[in-house]
C-alpha cells in the first residue's frame, strides 16, 4: 500500500518536474495594444486596460506546456529595460498600432534595435498589425515594407509571421477580428514546440551568460583592485557549476539543431507569410543558429556588409532616410514581397509626410 502511494507520488513529482515552460514576450510601442492582445489571448477581452507600468505576467496552458507571457510597458522610459528580458524567452510578439501611421518611423527604429539584439536571433517572432477596426489602418504587406521586416528577419534568421488583428469586438463585425491573434499565437507556439529542445538549450545558455555578465559586472564593480577575475584562482562554486553547465550544454544543443534543422528550414521557406529568401542568402547553414549566441552587433554588421550593398549601409542613414531604404530594398527583394508598382512609391510618400513630424 505504502509502496503504491510512494510510487504514485514519485510519478506525480516526475511529471511536475518534466513540465516544460515556454516564455513569450510581448513588446511594442505604447498604446499599440499589447495588454489588449494579451487579454485576448488569455480570453478576457472585456477587461479595461490601463497604460502598463512595468509588466504583467500571465500563465496559460498549451498542450503539455506551461506558457508564460510577459507583457511589458511600451513607454520610452521602459524601452531601455526590454533587453533584460530577451535572454529568457522562447518567442516574441511585436504589436504595432497599424492605424497610427505617424509613428511608423519610430516603430521601425525600435523594431530594428530589437531584432538586431544578439539574444533575439533565431527565435520565432509574431508581428501583429493591431487596430484593423480603424479605417486608416495599414495591412500586413504595407507593414512588412515599412518596417523592413524581410531584411531584418532574414539576417537574424528569425522565423516570422505577420498577422492583422483587432482587439475591440463590435457586433456588426462579428468575431473575425481576433482570429489573427489566435492563429498567430497558435503558429508561434507550434513552431516553439517543434524546436523546443534547441530553443530551450539556447535560452539556458543565454540565461547563464546573462547571469555571468551580471556577476562579472558586480565583481568588477566591487573589487577595488584592478586584478582580472580570470587570474583569480578562487572562484565561487556557483560560477564553476555554471561554467560546467555551459560547456556541457552546447553539444546537446547542436544535436538538437541537427535533428531539427530541416524542419526549421522548411518552416522558413514554406509556412511563413514572410519567408526568408530562397536566393543564395538564405542558404546560410541553420547550424549557425546554435552559435548565434556569440553574435555581436559588430559581427552582424559585417555579415550585412557582405550580403548587401556595402556603401549604403551607413548606420546613421539607415533608419532616417527612406530613399536609402528604397535602394537597399532593391538589392534583395524576396519572392514573397508584393510586386513593386505604384503602390510602393505611394508608400514611400506616406512614410515621408507624417514620419518627419517627430
Amino acid at each position, binding site marked *: 500500500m505504502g509502496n503504491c502511494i510512494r510510487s504514485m507520488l514519485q510519478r506525480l513529482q516526475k511529471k511536475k518536474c518534466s513540465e516544460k515552460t515556454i516564455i513569450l514576450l510581448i513588446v511594442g510601442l505604447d498604446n499599440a495594444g499589447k495588454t489588449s492582445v494579451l487579454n485576448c489571448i488569455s480570453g478576457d477581452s472585456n477587461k479595461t486596460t490601463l497604460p502598463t507600468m512595468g509588466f504583467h505576467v500571465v500563465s496559460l496552458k498549451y498542450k503539455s506546456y506551461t506558457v508564460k507571457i510577459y507583457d511589458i510597458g511600451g513607454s520610452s522610459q*521602459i524601452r531601455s529595460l526590454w533587453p533584460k528580458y530577451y535572454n529568457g524567452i522562447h518567442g516574441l510578439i511585436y504589436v504595432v498600432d497599424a492605424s497610427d501611421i505617424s509613428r511608423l518611423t519610430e516603430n521601425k527604429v525600435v523594431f530594428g534595435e530589437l531584432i538586431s539584439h544578439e539574444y533575439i536571433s533565431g527565435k520565432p517572432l509574431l508581428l501583429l498589425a493591431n487596430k484593423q477596426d480603424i479605417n486608416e489602418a495599414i495591412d500586413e504587406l504595407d507593414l512588412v515594407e515599412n518596417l523592413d521586416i524581410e531584411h531584418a528577419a532574414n539576417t537574424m534568421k528569425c522565423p516570422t509571421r505577420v498577422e492583422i488583428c483587432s482587439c475591440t469586438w463590435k457586433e456588426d463585425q462579428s468575431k473575425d477580428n481576433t482570429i489573427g491573434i489566435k492563429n498567430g499565437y497558435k503558429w508561434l507556439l507550434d513552431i516553439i514546440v517543434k524546436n523546443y529542445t534547441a530553443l530551450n538549450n539556447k535560452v539556458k545558455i543565454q540565461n547563464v551568460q546573462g547571469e555571468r555578465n551580471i556577476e562579472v559586472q558586480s565583481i568588477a564593480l566591487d573589487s577595488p583592485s584592478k586584478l582580472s577575475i580570470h587570474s583569480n584562482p578562487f572562484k565561487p562554486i556557483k560560477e564553476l557549476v555554471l561554467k560546467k553547465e555551459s560547456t556541457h550544454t552546447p553539444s546537446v544543443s547542436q544535436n538538437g539543431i541537427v535533428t531539427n534543422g530541416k524542419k526549421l528550414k522548411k518552416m522558413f521557406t514554406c509556412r511563413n507569410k514572410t519567408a526568408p529568401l530562397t536566393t543564395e542568402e538564405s542558404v546560410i547553414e541553420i547550424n549557425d543558429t546554435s552559435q548565434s549566441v556569440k553574435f555581436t552587433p559588430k559581427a552582424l554588421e559585417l555579415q550585412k556588409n557582405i550580403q548587401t550593398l556595402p556603401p549604403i549601409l551607413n548606420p546613421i542613414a539607415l533608419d532616417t532616410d527612406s530613399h536609402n531604404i528604397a535602394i537597399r530594398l532593391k538589392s534583395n527583394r524576396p519572392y514573397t514581397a508584393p510586386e513593386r508598382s505604384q503602390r510602393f512609391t505611394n508608400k514611400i510618400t506616406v512614410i515621408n509626410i507624417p514620419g518627419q513630424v517627430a
Partner: protein
Amino acid sequence: MFVYFWSLVCWYFRPIIKWLLRHTTRMCELQRICYGELCGAPRTLAVEESLKLSRNANIKTLIVYLNDFADQRAITNQTKQKILEEAIVTILVTKKINPTAHPDFAKSFGKCVELIWGYRQLCVECEELRKTPYDADNPEHELLLLKLWNLLMPYEPLDARVTKQWQHIGFQGDDPKTDFRGMGILGLENLVYFAQEYPSAATHVLSHSTHPRYGYAFAIVGINLTSMALRLLRDGSAKTHIYNSSKSFPTIRAFHQLYCYLFYEFDGFWIDSKPSNMMEFSSIQEKFENSIRMALADSSTVFRINISVDNV
C-alpha cells in the same frame, strides 16, 4: 457546505434573537445600533447590514426606492432633504418608534442613510466619469489637460499640444490622450485635483518621480492609482474611509481626497521599498494595495494626508 449550514442557522436564529432583544430592551435593532455603535463607519456599516437583512416588506421597498434614486444620480442637495425625511418616516412608522421619545434616533439614522446612498451614488458617478473617454475635440477636456500642465510645470510653458514635454510629467508618448484609456476623464480629473488642492505635495511627488534611481512615470502611475482607488470604491473596501471622513453626503470630492492620499502614500511606499527599476511596479503596487486594504479592514480608519514636505 459549512457556509450553507451557517446561513441556514442565521436565517432561523437571527429573528429569534432580534425578537428577544426587542422585548428586553424595548428598542428595535436599528435603534440599538444607532445608540450603541460609534458614529461614523461602525454605525453606518451596521445599519447598512441590518437594512440589507431586513425581511420587512416596507423596508425592502424603501431600499429599492432609494437604490433607484442613487443609480439615477437623483440625490442632489435640493432633493436630499425630502428623500431623507421620507426614509426616516417610513422607518418610524414600520418600527413604531415614537419620534418625540427618541429624537436622536431620527437624526443619526438619517445621517447613516445619507452616507449609505451617497456612497452608492458616488460609485455610479465615478463609473460614469470613467466611461467618458478623453476627447481631443472637446475643449473642456483639452483645457483640463492644459491646466494640469500649468499646475505641475508653472515655470515651463508648453511648446505645442503634441510634444515630447508631456513625458516630463510621466505620460508615455507625445500626446497624452491615448494614456487615459481605461480610466477616461476620471484619471485626468484626479490628477488635476491632486495638483490643484495639494500643490506642494504634488510637486514633491513629481520631483520624486524624476529621481535618477527610483524614478517612475508620474502620470501613468497616477492613472494606475485611479484604477486602484476605483477598485477599492467598487468592492466596498473604501466604505470605512468614506463613512468616517464625510460629515454629510459624500460627493466626488471624497473620491478625489482618497485618491490624493493614495498617491502621496504610494510615493513614499515606492521610495521606501527601493525598487531596482520600474519593472517592479506591479509587485510593489500589489503590496501597497494589500497594506491599504488591511488598514481599511479596521472600521476606525480614516485617511488623512499628513504633508511633511517642508522639511525634506
